[in-house]
């Protein structure tokens, strides 16, 4: 009975980016279906061949996300993502998606702190048309004032739906803001409402001019394709797009060392199951240096990866019966410092202070007793299997690479990752816990109901 509660709670509890840790990657296991090339204008490309179905997923990932926004313009990266469907010199507003649909395809886009991505899923023989249109809006976006204002209302409704209607999401936004004193990861991807309301056409065009272009993008094509043909199509369609001279290195204010623990409590009458969540500032995967991130990835699995067999699940949910749900999470695929988190949802008869004490006790137990080697073997079996199961989804394989390259990693790092995970020892995991799970680098949050709950009608 993991899935019911997991889905319901995690949607609310986890960081808003919607990022899950990338699955292990095939290339490390000698898979020769992945190839790369680079065009003269700086466009990097990754091709993943899978001939099982006559389908292709075509994606362009830009090395720009919400954390690259100018001060006071929060939400502009995501707003621009919406406006990219509003036409070019040759395409009417909405014509991009309508053309994809006319091919039987589907399209969409997504924005995180580190990247902005656009994708279409179509019959494999429509790849050229997708490239033609995507290359067009890489350089020729045209916006109309009226379209911009209407779309801003859509984004405000999106924020209301995803964040303001969800106490867990509001709580996550407050926690994230407290986690980062200086780094722009403190600011929500969708933006603060007051700042979204002020975004305009010129903000979007400026952000587009500063960050869009082939030399700031990665093309990813996955599916029933021939890599040589993909390269020829890419040269034809993306080749003529000039490099954008405005593109420079990504410069973001970095986070200073955290010296004091931080705490917050958010009360909302819509909360059903109060919980305590704690995050620690943690290192991310770096090119050629992914060992610490690998140890933290397995630490999350050991601490809270399974309601039955992880340390917190087995002890708090099963043996002691004091928690409804527990979890540990870590997303190492991030350009800058990321977080490691622990979550305990206590049974209704327990307080959050007791739940937090349980959480502390579990950390102490792990550091004192080390990792159960049989459990570590099971976790590694699942890591290896994830590589096999992961090959079943084109979208997932393509996204693994997109996530990684926009977080500053190379294709080689993606290929090496499963092997690095497999080499992690129990001692490495305990060392990672000692290094990262330190009170002074923590943010501990309680999500509660108000003391005198408002009456709500159902």
């Amino acid at each position: 009975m993991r899935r019911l509660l997991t889905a319901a709670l995690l949607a609310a509890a986890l960081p808003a980016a919607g990022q899950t840790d990338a699955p292990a990657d095939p290339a490390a296991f000698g898979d020769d279906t992945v190839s790369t090339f680079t065009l003269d204008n700086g466009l990097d490309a990754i091709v993943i061949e899978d001939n099982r179905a006559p389908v292709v997923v075509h994606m362009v990932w830009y090395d720009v996300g919400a954390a690259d926004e100018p001060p006071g313009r929060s939400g502009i990266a995501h707003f621009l993502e919406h406006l990219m469907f509003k036409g070019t010199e040759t395409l009417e507003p909405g014509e991009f998606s309508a053309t994809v649909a006319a091919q039987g395809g589907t399209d969409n886009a997504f924005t995180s702190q580190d990247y902005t991505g656009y994708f279409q899923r179509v019959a494999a023989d429509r790849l050229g048309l997708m490239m033609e249109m995507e290359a067009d809006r890489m350089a020729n976006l045209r916006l109309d004032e009226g379209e911009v204002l209407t779309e801003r209302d859509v984004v405000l409704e999106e924020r209301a739906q995803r964040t303001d209607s969800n106490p867990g999401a509001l709580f996550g936004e407050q926690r994230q803001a407290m986690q980062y004193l200086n780094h722009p990861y403190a600011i929500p991807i969708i933006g603060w409402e007051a700042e979204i309301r002020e975004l305009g056409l010129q903000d979007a065009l400026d952000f587009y001019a500063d960050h869009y272009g082939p030399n700031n993008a990665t093309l990813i094509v996955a599916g029933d394709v021939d890599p040589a043909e993909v390269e020829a199509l890419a040269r034809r369609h993306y080749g003529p797009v000039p490099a954008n001279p405005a593109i420079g290195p990504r410069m973001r204010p970095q986070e200073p060392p955290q010296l004091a623990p931080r705490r917050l409590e958010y009360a909302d009458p819509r909360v059903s199951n109060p919980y305590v969540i704690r995050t620690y500032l943690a290192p991310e995967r770096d090119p050629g240096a992914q060992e610490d991130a690998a140890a933290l990835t397995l630490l999350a699995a050991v601490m809270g990866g399974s309601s039955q067999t992880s340390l917190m699940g087995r002890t708090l949910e099963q043996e002691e019966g004091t928690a409804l749900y527990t979890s540990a999470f870590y997303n190492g695929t991030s350009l800058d410092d990321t977080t490691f988190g622990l979550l305990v949802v206590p049974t209704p008869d327990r307080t959050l202070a007791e739940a937090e004490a349980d959480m502390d006790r579990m950390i102490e137990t792990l550091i004192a007793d080390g990792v159960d080697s049989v459990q570590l073997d099971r976790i590694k079996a699942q890591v290896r299997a994830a590589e096999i199961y992961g090959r079943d989804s084109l979208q997932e394989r393509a996204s693994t690479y997109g996530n990684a390259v926009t977080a500053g990693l190379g294709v080689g790092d993606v290929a090496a990752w499963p092997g690095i995970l497999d080499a992690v020892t129990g001692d490495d995991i305990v060392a990672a816990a000692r290094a990262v799970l330190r009170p002074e680098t923590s943010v501990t949050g309680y999500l509660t109901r108000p003391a005198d709950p408002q009456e709500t009608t159902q």
Partner: protein
Amino acid sequence: MIHPLRILVAAAALALPVSAHAAVEIQEVTSPGGIEAWLVEESSIPFVALEIRFDGGAVLDPDDAVGATNLMVALLEEGAAERDAQAFAEAVEGLAARFGFDAYHDGVNVSAAFLTENRDEGVALLRDALTRPRFDPDAIERVREQVLAVIEQDNNDPSAIAGRKASELAYPDHPYGRPVDGTTESVAGLTRDDLVDAHARTLVRSRMHVGATGDITAEELGLVLDELLGGLPEGEAVDIPMADYALDGGVTVTEFPTPQSVVIFGHDSIMQDDPDFFPAFVMNHVLGGRGFDSRLMTEVREERGLTYGIGSYLSPRDYGASHLGQFSSGNDRVAEAIAVVRDQWADIAENGITQEELDRAKTFLTGAYPLRFDGNGTIAGILVGMQSQGWPTTYIETRNDRVNAVTLDDVQRVARRIMRPEDLHFLVVGQPEGVESGTLPEG
């Protein structure tokens, strides 16, 4: 002279704007023990996905044990045969097998994936879960608490409140009107016997459909079927009445403190075996189908910015059918959004759609169909869905022809038949301004 072959190739290219059919070959397999399944063999990745559907789910819950099927299904992997919950989880995780169990009104779905390297051991574990679940008292209490937590969460989620309210009001005298999870009171009252009964009633061979896709031969699958499912009882036919749809046109507001109102709208509609289903399906795609260019998305989102997303869908279920849609809008703007939806519903009923809209819908629907068949788990799910509908394996080859056969006259006639703006009911959860329970104001 032009070579005849070239003309042929050119004609074919014109006739097939996109790959016209899915590249899957379905084998109908019967095990030595007589269990039937559909198989798509695909050996390039060393695992097999298995999907099993049992017809008849939460609708079979007795009145005094609402939620029993849901709790039973949630307990299947919480201890079976010689293993308690933890030992069972350790065994599954050690094999890296993946099991999923899902209860809903019309059925119970079991989804599994087994690595080729340890398939037999994985199958034995799933067999234990399906045929010898323990329902240990401590596991029952633990999972009961979790289900109660989910119910409590739903009680505070405007979207869940709207969905439950819609079911209650539409089907007051039918199991469809009861939540699959049960209520706080009903779940608190469930006994171990209720779960044992639900298990015996639900997981039966006579109402079972099986689909498999991946690295397994027909012969191997036959042996797996007997090992996995041979121990299940044959079971009895079920007798569930069709559901009367009790909601008339109007508005029901449920007050809830939130900045945005959630709206579910719709009325009853036609079943999947209705001869008009394909024209209805094509018409709904134009009204509120997937993508950004449906009428509802265009009018409510793109033109007016009143919502982040809106869609409509036909929902033909085993015991009743409806035509529904959903969106969220700020409390101060939801009245306008409701008016736009009602106008669109009325317009399509009165005027139907255009030839251009019909052509666009057909191109999308026929082009998108073969793209569905990617991924072992996805294909196994499609195989089971087809069997559950009673369709032949050849359905895949004829499906796009049925879409293409829909004429503009068909759509206009069916729109007049099934779109009834006067019966449209809007369930609103939030603090909407200028919207009150009662009859829908005139447009």
